[in-house]
């Protein structure tokens, strides 16, 4: 038992050492150490009851003392450095407290300690007395107080002996006489109030009464608390190895040699870096460039040398400035109505006139953020760098300047201006009209199957001839010495002698018709048959009937009045145009070949030329030489009508694509002028015989009279000025004016229309 206790004390001392060296160790260890210390104390108390003996484990105690001193010294040092003076004082107070405690523990031991203190003083004398005492109280090295010198041997070895060990002088320590039996023990238990705190001491065999302090100590230990009541488990930790540089070293170990000589590894690294810098692999640290955010007078010296490049540069157009409708509080007229809003929502974003909906807010604080703001800026950015820029020449002309300067119509009089007479009587549309060379009579052919003769001045219908078919064309013989009318209907051409002139004239025409009897025999197998009329027809004035193989569209007289040409439009045959000689009752087909659908024909007023208008062109044939002299390109689709200038050098053509082309035969085969005055197909054109006027009739119900001066000077181009738009005809069945013709002497124009009327404009 003794042995184990001594070993435990040694180990306790060691742990103490460790503890003192490493004060930051956990509290658990500390508690263990304290426990052992308490045990020692207990031992020491028990021994104190025995006789005084010399300490045998002196070396042990010495060791502990040494270690304690050393530790305490270092401890103090640390305290000095880390803690304030107060801490030191506290330590002192603690020492005093503990001193008092020991005094209370046992009066008997006091003497002994004093003695040992003296001995120690003689031995060492290095430390102060108070400190020493302090040391004993704390330390477990109370072995010197052990009176029994058997050491750490199991006490049962002495069971059979009267003594229990030996004191310091080598004399036997006798066991106390145990004469108590069970009864005594019981009585003692009943009587002795200190019985519960009386404990037998195994080493001495005597009973020891524990003092109050000792009892408390036992209680504390049983509860698992520290033995020392005043011990503070939560003392502040002392940081030895902190980041602060301390005045004194933690250890006073001298510095190594290697800390004084340069490192080889570092040297190698540095030389590598130096080499890399030399070779340019590593660039030295850049000097901080702070000129980036610094502004200066960039345009201090403006030179024009760079300007050269900017000739081609187009600055971006600025954003258009906002109008009233963008206001937060626009005038009410700029706000959208419901329909406008619906339309805006329906439209594609690119089609919208405004990219936003105008809105009205009653006060500024109600205006929200514009949700497309960033979008709009972004789109502007895209425009700036992605849109091709182009310089657009904006035409900045006054529209008035574009209107050509023409002579005033007032100065170009006379020309027809007002509708003066309306000739009513036909029941069908009037396809064709013709004025007698004298200018007194007007003949008209209508779809109602009648030819009517009108007096021009009075608009009276003098005569109506029922011809029994829709009249396609009528033409008055231009020769003033005869009075004949050619009428085309179905496949017949009729020659009428209306006997509306002087007797002289009527006679001469009669003569013309009756003269060429003998030539008849030659005819026979030709394509046409000439026949004289009889009976009823003769009474109406129909004198001759020229039967054609196909339907006749148009008839046209030669200026002399002997020849009449008839047109039978047909795609497939060359028999489209026939020229009939009235005086000899002979017909001939001038063309061997089919050169397109013939629309109209006309004789040249003075020279032996013959104009044939096909759908796209006008061919001019020389009748004497029997060859084509010219082919005029009308540049229009489907020529409808044609008229030749009385001078014979100019031709106008009307076409179904609303155009009127003026050809100058001296110039080119292309039209000299194209007039697009009409809105619809041109049906008829006409020249005035004396005045420089021409007229065109169209399906849009208008007759446009133009002034067309032809100068004798060949170098001067003809002057064409529209002078009057004549309206009056009503449009029926999409047909307006069908034919137009001038009065031979007066500046009057006649027009016939689909509304079954003929109108005279003067």
């Amino acid at each position, binding site marked *: 038992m003794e042995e184990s206790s001594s070993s435990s004390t040694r180990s306790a001392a060691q742990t103490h050492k460790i503890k003192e060296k490493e004060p930051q160790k956990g509290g658990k260890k500390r508690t263990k150490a304290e426990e052992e210390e308490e045990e020692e104390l207990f031992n020491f108390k028990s021994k104190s009851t025995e006789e005084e003996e010399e300490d045998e484990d002196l070396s042990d105690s010495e060791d502990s003392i040494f270690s304690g001193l050393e530790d305490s010294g270092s401890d103090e040092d640390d305290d000095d450095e880390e803690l304030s003076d107060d801490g030191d004082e506290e330590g002192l107070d603690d020492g005093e407290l503990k001193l008092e405690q020991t005094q209370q523990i046992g009066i008997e031991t006091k003497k002994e300690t004093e003695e040992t203190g003296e001995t120690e003083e003689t031995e060492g004398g290095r430390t102060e007395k108070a400190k020493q005492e302090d040391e004993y109280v704390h330390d477990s090295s109370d072995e010197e107080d052990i009176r029994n010198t058997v050491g750490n041997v199991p006490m049962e070895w002495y069971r059979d002996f009267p003594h229990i060990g030996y004191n310091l002088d080598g004399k036997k320590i006798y066991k106390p006489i145990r004469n108590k039996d069970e009864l005594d023990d019981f009585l003692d238990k009943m009587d002795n109030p200190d019985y519960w705190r009386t404990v037998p001491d195994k080493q001495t065999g005597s009973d020891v009464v524990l003092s109050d302090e000792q009892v408390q100590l036992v209680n504390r230990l049983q509860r698992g608390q520290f033995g020392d009541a005043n011990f503070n488990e939560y003392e502040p930790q002392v940081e030895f190895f902190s980041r602060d540089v301390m005045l004194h070293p933690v250890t006073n170990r001298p510095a190594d040699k290697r800390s004084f000589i340069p490192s080889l590894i570092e040297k190698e690294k540095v030389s590598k870096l130096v080499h890399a810098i030399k070779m340019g692999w590593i660039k030295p640290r850049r000097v901080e*460039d702070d000129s*980036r*955010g610094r*502004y*200066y*007078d*960039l*345009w201090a010296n*403006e030179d024009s040398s*760079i*300007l050269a490049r900017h000739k*081609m540069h187009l600055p*971006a157009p600025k954003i258009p*400035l*906002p*109008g*009233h409708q*963008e*206001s*937060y*509080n*626009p*005038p009410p*007229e700029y706000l959208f*109505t419901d329909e406008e809003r619906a339309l805006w929502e329906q439209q594609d974003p690119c089609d919208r006139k405004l990219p936003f909906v*105008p809105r009205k807010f009653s*006060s*500024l*604080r109600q*205006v*929200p953020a*514009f949700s497309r*703001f*960033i*979008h*709009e*800026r*972004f789109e*502007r950015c895209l425009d*700036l*760098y*992605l*849109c*091709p*820029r182009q310089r657009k020449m904006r035409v900045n*002309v006054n*529209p008035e300047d*574009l*209107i*050509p*300067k*023409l002579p005033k*119509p007032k100065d170009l009089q006379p020309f027809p201006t007002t509708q003066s007479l*309306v000739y*009513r009587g036909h029941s069908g549309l009037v396809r064709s009209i013709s004025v007698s060379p004298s200018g007194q009579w007007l003949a008209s052919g209508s779809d109602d199957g009648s030819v009517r003769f009108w007096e021009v001045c009075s608009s009276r219908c003098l005569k109506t001839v029922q011809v029994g078919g829709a009249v396609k064309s009528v033409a008055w013989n231009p020769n003033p010495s005869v009075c004949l009318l050619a009428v085309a209907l179905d496949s017949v051409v009729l020659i009428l002698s209306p006997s509306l002139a002087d007797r002289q004239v009527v006679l001469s025409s009669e003569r013309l018709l009756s003269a060429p009897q003998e030539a008849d025999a030659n005819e026979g197998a030709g394509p046409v048959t000439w026949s004289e009329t009889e009976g009823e027809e003769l009474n109406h004035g129909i004198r001759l009937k020229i039967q054609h193989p196909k339907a006749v569209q148009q008839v046209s007289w030669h200026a002399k009045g002997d020849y009449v040409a008839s047109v039978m439009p047909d795609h497939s045959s060359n028999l489209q145009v026939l020229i009939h000689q009235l005086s000899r009752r002979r017909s001939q087909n001038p063309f061997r070949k089919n050169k397109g659908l013939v629309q109209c024909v006309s004789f040249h007023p003075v020279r032996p030329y013959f104009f044939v208008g096909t759908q796209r062109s006008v061919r001019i044939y020389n009748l004497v030489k029997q060859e084509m002299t010219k082919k005029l390109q009308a540049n229009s689709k489907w020529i409808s009508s044609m008229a030749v200038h009385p001078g014979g050098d100019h031709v106008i053509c009307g076409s179904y694509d609303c155009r009127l082309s003026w050809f100058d035969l001296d110039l080119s085969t292309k039209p000299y002028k194209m*007039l*697009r005055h009409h809105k619809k197909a041109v049906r008829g054109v006409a020249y005035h015989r004396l005045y420089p006027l021409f007229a065109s009739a169209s399906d849009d119900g208008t007759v446009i009279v133009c002034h067309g001066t032809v100068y004798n000077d060949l170098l001067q181009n003809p002057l*064409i000025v*529209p002078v*009057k738009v004549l309206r009056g005809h009503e449009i029926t069945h999409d047909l307006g004016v069908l034919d137009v013709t001038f009065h031979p002497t007066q500046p009057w124009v006649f027009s016939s229309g689909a509304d079954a009327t003929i109108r005279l404009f003067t």
Partner: protein
Amino acid sequence: MGGLQKKKYERGSATNYITRNKARKKLQLSLPDFRRLCILKGIYPHEPKHKKKVNKGSTAPRTFYLLKDIRFLLHEPIVGKFREYKVFVRKLKKAYGKTEWSSVERLKENKPAYKLDHIIKERYPSFIDALRDIDDALCMCFLFSTFARTGKCHVQTIQLCRRLTVEWMNYVIASRALKKVFISIKGIYYQAEAMGQLITWLVPYQFSHDHPTDVDYRVMATFTEFYTTLLGFINFRLYHSLNLLYPPKVSWTLKQSQMKLSALSASLARVVSTAEEDEAELDQFPVDGEDMANMEAREKEQKQEEAQKKLFEGLKFFLNREVPRESLAFLIRCFGGEVSWDKSVCIGSTYEVKDETITHQIVDRPNIDKQYINRYYIQPQWVYDCVNAKIILPVEDYFLGVTLPPHLSPFVEEKDGDYVPPEKLKIMALQRGEKPAHEQEDEEEEEEEDEEEEEEEEEDDNEEEGDDGEEAEEKNLKKMEEQRSQGKSLSVKVTAGKVKVENPARLEQEEKAEEKRLAIMMMKKKEKYLYDKIMFGKKRKVREANKLAAKRKAHDDAEKSKKKARK
């Protein structure tokens, strides 16, 4: 014939243009880098005249750049920087991948940077050129200055934009250059005149932005990079033109809005204390006739401008907390007024509400509890309208809780024939110095309008009557004709003839109109097309103006009837 055959597309326009992809390859740049370069250098595509020729016979849609432009880009030092940056990024990635932090540090320190000074000098060889092109720069900087730190762009950019815009506003205040201002639904437009150039910019309202996802912020950031540099140099120059120190001494440490305001309320330190504005007075030249009139007009205009500059001088404003403080403070200071606001709202207030010398308090709420007698309580639109009208407008229309008169755009300049809103006419009358006799004048105007309309109607009637007369005659004739043709004996009756009153002026007019019509018929095809187009445009304009007028009239009538109903 001998000789080498000429190859197609080796000369002419085909060699002057280059497609975008080819240009990119030639410059050895990625598409984003190419885009950045184009933005910075101001290179834009061109539309060739003969696209097919340039496209070497293909009709595929391509973007073409001028070859010269691309060659010009080849010499740009920034291209080298772009490449360096690319290498830098690659190295950095590698270092990160290998977790070599020291080399990451080193690389980051050596991050390549470029400057745009030379590009600005090159794109805008003269200062005026730069000033002319500053509109977009200002709009963009003002937009960026309202951005929050959302990661859409660098914080430094936002701060720089804020700084530059405040500097610009300070310049405008110092030079009293502001001319017009307009509150639109998008934001507030300002127009200032600097060095003879009209500069317009748009400032968004102070709300946080709802950042759209279909916007490429990199493009915007590149533009902003260029614009901030440009604006900085322009600010520098402008400040120096006023003998002001640049950068101005404003404490930039303050927060955004506060910074703006304090900057606006602080006057700028001058380098040299100049004597009173030495306005160059117009020299009197001995001139005659028209020039004289011109001179007078110009002088008058200048006088007016001078007056506008001192519009709010002597007035003391107080801004309530609900009005847009920055805009109003800027405006009022631009025209020489004094302005303050509540101390608790923002720093920089100079006087309190209790100040007895305040003349106008700007309020944007229906009513206010405590009102001082000796000041006007007006809505903010008054300030804007005054600036645009260049006069102090009567405050009656702008009192608290009053329905405001419409806010008109000052940028619209009506030519004759355009629609002019009646409010604008009223303001113009005020400008001419006519007294606003409110209700009466309105009524008079209305009456006048009515009269005019009536006259117009009468004219129409006349025309109609004339037509009617002719038509009636025609009808009569037709009837007679019919009767005659049916073989009935005419009811012989002589009716008294009417004397046709012919208006000589009208006749003449008609004649002229006909003449014109006939002349138009003789126009050449090309000219006719042009003429028709012009006339179409004119007619459309008239139609629009009429539509607006009609809408207004309908609205006014509705209002009137409402008023009557209430009575």
